[in-house]
């Protein structure tokens, strides 16, 4: 009985101390961002690794989701004679939800794992300790540029995802099914608001960028310096970023789109 209570207490304390640890790490990261701004070439190099190299998977996934969404929505809308609203439905679901969320999930898998593994191996190879010995702060030289690059890359990727998704939907709806192109675009333009829908989607993706990159960096920086430790940290990066993105998405949606 005492043992059960003790184990509950131990787990709670461990969870809270881990949370506090992560919060301190995050504050540290934020403090080193201005330093990274001064050495912007490092950020650019990381944007190449994180953003540019994710382009293929993001655009491929965007086109595929747009096409499939258009096809399925067409079957759902045709019985109501509303197949012209196809573009609107696809546009809103991509710009508000699918664009930011799916991009963040893909980003966690494509770029987050790479960040964790890279930093974890730097730690395992004692490169980070070597930097500290040379009086170079690894947080400002290694972590902060990657953090900034992640935050900058994620909204660009999410916008691209939505844009190619809409183009994919256009391809299926107008070119394949034969929905009237004029109505396809004009209903979209009449009902999608730049600031409320597109703007909030960008805000969402920026928040997801902060979450995904911070989680990846934290897991890499705090990894056990062994092969198993790096493997474990990489797995945790994907699981943690995905779950927090989904939870955060619900909160942000409730906050942004609660009024019709």
């Amino acid at each position, binding site marked *: 009985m005492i043992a059960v209570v003790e184990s509950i207490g131990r787990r709670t304390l461990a969870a809270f101390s881990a949370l506090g640890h992560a919060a301190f790490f995050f504050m540290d990261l934020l403090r080193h961002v201005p330093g990274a701004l001064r050495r912007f070439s490092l950020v650019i190099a990381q*944007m*190449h690794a994180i953003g540019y190299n994710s382009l293929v998977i993001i655009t491929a996934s965007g086109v595929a989701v747009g096409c499939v969404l258009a096809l399925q929505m067409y079957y759902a809308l045709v019985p109501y004679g509303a197949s012209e609203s196809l*573009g609107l439905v696809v*546009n809103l679901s991509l710009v508000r939800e699918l664009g930011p969320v799916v991009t963040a999930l893909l980003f966690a898998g494509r770029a987050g794992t790479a960040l964790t593994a890279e930093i974890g191996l730097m730690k395992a190879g004692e490169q980070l300790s070597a930097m500290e010995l040379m009086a170079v702060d690894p947080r400002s030289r290694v972590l902060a540029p990657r953090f900034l690059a992640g935050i900058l890359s994620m909204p*660009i990727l999410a916008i691209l995802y939505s*844009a190619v998704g*809409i183009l994919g939907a256009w391809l299926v709806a107008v070119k394949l099914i034969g929905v009237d192109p004029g109505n396809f675009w004009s209903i979209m*333009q009449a009902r*999608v608001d730049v600031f409320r829908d597109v703007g909030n989607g960008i805000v969402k993706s920026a928040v997801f960028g902060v979450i995904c990159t911070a989680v990846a960096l934290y897991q890499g920086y705090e990894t056990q310096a062994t092969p198993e430790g790096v493997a474990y940290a990489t797995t945790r990066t994907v699981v943690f970023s995905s779950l927090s993105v989904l939870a955060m998405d619900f909160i942000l949606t409730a906050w942004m789109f609660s009024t019709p």
Partner: protein
Amino acid sequence: MDVLDAVNAASSKEIGLVMAKKRTEILVGVFVLLGIFALVFLALRAANLSSFSTVKGYQVRARFDNIGGLKVRAPVRSAGVAVGHVVSIALDKNTYQGLVVMEINQGVSFPADSSAQILTSGLLGDQYVGIEPGADDKNLKAGDLIKQTQSAVVLEKLIGQMIFNKAADAGGGTSPAPAAPAPATTPAASGGASK
């Protein structure tokens, strides 16, 4: 100039490094430009930024008994042509009517006795304000009130009225009910009824 000096002074390995860095920067530039291009596409082609008019208009008000499902930013049309949009909707505390403020584009003017009505595009489409021009010599000015208004058609009320009328007909028609099937027996009468 800087790059040239560096290239001249550097060994072949350093040239490789400079080229690699330049290549990275070009690719990131492409990445950012793609993002900007996608944003412009979303804003102009797939959202309503292009419909924001830069020309300011003037505001007129109208009171409606029932605004139905009219929303802020709904279009204001005359003869089907969009001439403005709804700015705000509020309940008039004195008359308990819906007070709708509309912005009409500059350059479009209507006679002062024009009437406003809330219409629906299509059977179940969005609602908009339609302006029917009057015949007055003077035109509507900023801040004017459109006096003649016609409320939105509320579908439930229409259906309710229809059911009520049906019931009234059925109630009144109990006595001639036996007469109703009578014309159907003669072919000439039924042909006349179908016309």
